[in-house]
Structure formats: C-alpha cells, structure tokens
C-alpha cells in the first residue's frame, strides 16, 4: 500500500484500512479450495440455464427471456451498482467462463497439481499486455447491443463466443491470458475496480521481501501461482487482480489480506509496475461515451436513433457503428484533450508533458463514468426489474411456474422519481471525481497554485458532463 498524506474532501484518510481476513472464520473460508470453486460451479449452473434459455428463446421477445433478463438486467446492474464499486473484481472471482481452460491447464478442478501447467503456455505479446485489445473488444461488442439486449439468440452467440474464446485462448496462452487481455467484460471491471472499496494486498512488506521463493507467484502445494500472472506481494492497484484468492492460499505467513478501504484510493497510484496509461485513459473515455450513446439509444425518446442501433436499415446501422466508433475513440478523447491542454496552459507549468496531464486527469473519469453507469443502471432496473420475477418462475417461457411468480405483469417501480435517483447518484460520483481530480492535480503540478489553476478546466469538463447527464436523466 502506498502511503499518502492526502485526504479525500479534506477529511477521508486514504490510508485507512479494515482487514476483513483478520477474522479467522473469514480467512478459513477464503483459504479453502472450495472457495471460489463452489460459487463458480453454482454460477456455471446458472449460466447453463441462461444459455439454454437464450438458445431456446431464439428470436422471441427478450423481455420474457431468462437469458436476456438475467444477463442484461440483473447481472449488468449488479455489476455496475454493487459488484465493481463495492467488491472490485468479485465477478471475476466467481465467473464460470474460464473454468474449462483452468481445468484443461491444471488437469484438476479442486486439487493442486504441482509443476508446469498444461496447454501450450505461450506468452501473450508484451505490446498487447494492456487494455487496448479489451477496449476494442468491448466497443465492438456494443455494436451489437441493439440485438443482444432484445434477441435471446444474440445473447447466446455472445456468451458462446466468450466461453469458447476463454477455452481456446487458455489452451494456447499461459494462465488467465483471456481474462487479463481479451475478455470484453474484464477491461471496464479492471478500470472501475480502482474505485472499489475492497482490495487484496499484502500486509507486511518485510515478510514478503524475505520470503523466497515468492509462493504467491510460483504457487505451492496449497494453491497455484497467481493465475492472473501478477505479483500479489507487490499489488498497489486492483486493476488486474482477479480476486481468485490463490495468493491467500499459497502464502505460508498469511501475509495476504482482503481489506475494506475508502473508495477510489487506487486512482492516486502511479508506480513503475502499475503505471497510469493511455490504454486505461481510453477505456475511461470509451466507457463514458458508450454510456452516452446507450442512454440516447435505450432510455431516450429518439426513435430514429433506436432504429439505427437495432439495425432496422443497413445504412442506418452502419451509420450508428461509424458514429459510435468515432464518438468514443476520437470525439470524447478529443474534447478531453482540449480541456487537458487548457489545464496545462492555465497552470503555467512548462515542464509537465501534455500527455501526462491528459493521461493522469483521465482517471477522474473513473468515478465520473461509474456514476453515469450506475445512473444508467437504475434506468434499466426500475422499469424492467419486474420481468426478473417472472422469468425466474418460467425461465424458458414454456409455461412453468416454479415460484408462483410467472403471472406477475410488467410493473415499473419508482419511475416517477427515477430521474432524481439517477441525478442524486450522479452528483455523489461527481463529488468523488472532483475530490480525486484535485488530488491528481496536486500530483501532476509542482505546487498548489499551479494545481489550482490547472484543475479549473478539468473541473469545468466534469461539471459539463454532469450537467449533460442531469439533463438526460431529469430532463
């Protein structure tokens, strides 16, 4: 953990930690090899039902399909509103998709098999060991959002590609290469997990320093070396920690911990091993841009745009893809670049490279983007949540009524005040963005005066984004 004297909003001690694993039963559960295997197996069963429902649902209406509802209403909302901001990459911990490649590599599901892992075990190219491929993968995935969220078979195809991709990549490349650098869902979780209130970290550096070999990396009879190919003894950020819990098992000194912490402390971390980078900055731009486009397409009143996204006509659909790509990859970063340039000019600092100002301030978009996505998720959940009760009872629309809820009609909840709930969430996360923006400004610029001047354009950008979304949410 990197010690900082800064306090968020001037009051929140960013060094504060509460170790959850200091409780023996908690540590015992997390060190068991059933954890996280058991939740993964339960989750795997859930996804079997999701895939079966999506496949048998075919081209039918998505609102009564278990696959569509659980993936795009329940899972997505849980991910954005609870799992990522609360529990970091807890989804990656229980994600069932890599179980088959893990099994193929290890030839064991439960036990630990010492020695070299199976598969070709190739190393992923160093140049691609970042978020760029995931940035493109996620953006391309959203080209099909107008189909995936309404056509069960489209969701089946997407999930099928991810599952097969995870397996094939696992056979070719080492460990969790797919999760690290290819999974479309992984990138934004990694980015936004920097804001999470939970972290996996070592406790005492002295213990790690003197411990050889580093079993958290190489593994031992208790567990595998970090499947995410990280060095857990040196974690400073959540970005690439998949929370697989292997390092808790392999550390003979119980020197790895899961801590509660103030939200967002990773935003201030910029080390040689875990530096801030343009790949993550672009991820933040893309996520913000997609949120805007999705809002316009799925929650806005503009029918022509909905038709474009749904591919009613080929020219319209191609127009959407072109707009979506340019907007996310060029326009949003371009606008932000202007504000970063103004920041540098206004600060009066001639030494800090513009690229550094641009990249570092882009991290303010992590809380901002998360707030936008949480607001968007509220807009999914409240109007559509009642469908979930229905599909739980009749997951395949075969006329079942497992829990007696199959006849519950579509019942929007609190939609009258939905915009205000979305707005309130947005303002809270705007505050976080501003709070961290100021701390970043102090990191970027040499003195407080420069930081104050340099922060004004970024504050303006954040305020404009907030006002745009307040207008969209509240009207």
């Amino acid at each position, binding site marked *: 953990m990197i010690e900082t004297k800064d306090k968020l909003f001037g009051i929140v001690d960013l060094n504060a930690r509460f170790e959850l694993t200091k409780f023996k039963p908690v540590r015992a559960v997390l060190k068991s*090899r*059933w954890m996280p*295997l058991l939740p993964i*197996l*339960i989750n*795997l*069963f859930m996804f*079997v*039902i999701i895939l*079966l429902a999506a496949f048998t*649902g*075919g*081209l*039918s*209406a998505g*609102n*009564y*399909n278990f696959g569509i509802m659980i993936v795009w209403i329940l899972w997505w909302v849980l991910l954005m509103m609870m799992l990522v901001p609360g529990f970091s990459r807890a989804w990656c911990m229980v994600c069932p998709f890599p*179980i088959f490649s893990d*099994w193929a590599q290890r030839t*064991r*599901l*439960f*036990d630990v098999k010492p020695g070299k892992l199976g598969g070709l075990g190739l190393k992923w190219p160093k140049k691609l060991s970042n978020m760029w491929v995931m940035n493109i993968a996620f953006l391309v995935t959203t080209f099909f959002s107008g189909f995936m969220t*309404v056509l069960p078979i489209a969701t089946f195809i997407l999930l099928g590609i991810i599952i097969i991709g995870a397996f094939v990549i696992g056979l070719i490349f080492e460990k969790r290469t797919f999760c690290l650098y290819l999974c479309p869902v992984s990138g934004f979780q990694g980015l936004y997990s920097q804001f999470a209130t939970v972290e996996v970290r070592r406790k005492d550096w002295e213990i790690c320093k003197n411990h050889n070999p580093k079993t958290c990396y190489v593994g031992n009879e208790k567990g595998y070396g970090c499947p995410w190919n990280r060095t857990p003894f040196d974690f400073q950020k959540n970005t690439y920690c998949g929370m697989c819990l292997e390092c808790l098992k392999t550390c003979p000194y119980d020197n790895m911990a899961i801590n509660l912490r103030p939200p967002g402390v990773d935003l201030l971390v910029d080390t040689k091993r875990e530096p801030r980078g343009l790949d993550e900055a672009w991820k933040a731009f893309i996520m913000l841009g997609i949120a805007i486009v999705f809002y316009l397409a799925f929650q806005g009143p503009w029918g022509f745009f909905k038709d474009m996204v749904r591919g009613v006509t080929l020219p319209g659909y191609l127009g959407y893809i072109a707009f979506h790509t340019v907007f996310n990859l060029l326009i949003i970063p371009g606008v932000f670049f202007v504000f970063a340039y103004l920041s540098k000019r206004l600060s009066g600092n001639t030494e800090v490279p513009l690229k550094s100002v641009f990249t570092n301030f882009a991290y303010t978009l992590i809380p901002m983007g998360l707030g936008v996505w949480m607001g968007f998720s509220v807009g999914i959940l409240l109007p559509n949540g009642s469908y979930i009760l229905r599909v739980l009872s009749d997951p*395949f*629309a*075969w*006329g079942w009524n497992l829990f007696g809820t199959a006849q519950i009609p579509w019942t929007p909840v609190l939609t009258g005040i939905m915009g205000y709930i979305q707005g309130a969430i947005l303002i809270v996360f705007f505050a976080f963005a501003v709070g961290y923006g100021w701390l970043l400004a102090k990191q970027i610029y040499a003195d407080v005066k420069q930081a104050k001047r340099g922060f004004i354009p970024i504050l303006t950008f954040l305020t404009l984004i907030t006002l745009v979304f307040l207008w969209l949410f509240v009207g």
Partner: protein
Amino acid sequence: MKIKNEPIAVAMLILGTIVAIIGILGFENYRRSAEYTAELTARATEYGNWYPNTITIPYGKPAKILIRNIDVVSHGFALPDFQIAVMEIKAGESAVIEFTPDKKGVFPFVCTIWCSNRHMEMRGQLVVE
C-alpha cells in the same frame, strides 16, 4: 477417512452442465407429452405462421393445447367452430386451451390480433378424427 474433493467437484460440474441440460430438456419433453394433447407456436406469417400449421386431436376426448407465442408481437387465437378464443397472448407468453371436441372434421383457427401486414394469412387447421 479423508474425503476426496476432486471427484466431488468434477461430479458437480457434470451435474451442473450436461446432466442439467439433459434433465431440463427431458423433463420438459415428458411434461408436454403427458400434459398436452398438442402444441402450437405462434409467429407472424412472415416469420413462420402457426407451427405446426395442422394439428390433429382425437374426437370425444378432452384436449389440452399449449399455445406459445415465440414472437415479438402479441397474437390472439380463435377456433370459431368450438367457440374458443384467447384474446391476447403477449410476446413470450403462453396460453392453454382445454375443450372436448364433439364433432369430427377439419376446422380453421386464426390469429385475432393484427400482428403484421400478412396477419390475415395467419391461420391453421385443427383436425378432429
């Protein structure tokens, strides 16, 4: 005796995947054959019409027909010769009709909700023999 967890984990994986799929499909197949005399799926004419287009049920025996709307629009169902109708089956929903056919012959059934440009062609026939 030490419990061997590896086989338990493998068994759970197989149960949760292959066995689950076979079990669900097998159960549904059994349920439908045991519970319903016939099954219809509804889609607008352009996308498949009633399927199957002709269903056959025995004369004089109680019939229970499952109608599943697998379309993205609402459909209705009417079997005028037996004065049976389902006003609306919403997209993704299903309905069940029960009656005892008291006459033999071939009887048309139709969709009663304007579902597409070719709505008037959305019809099929019930054979009672």
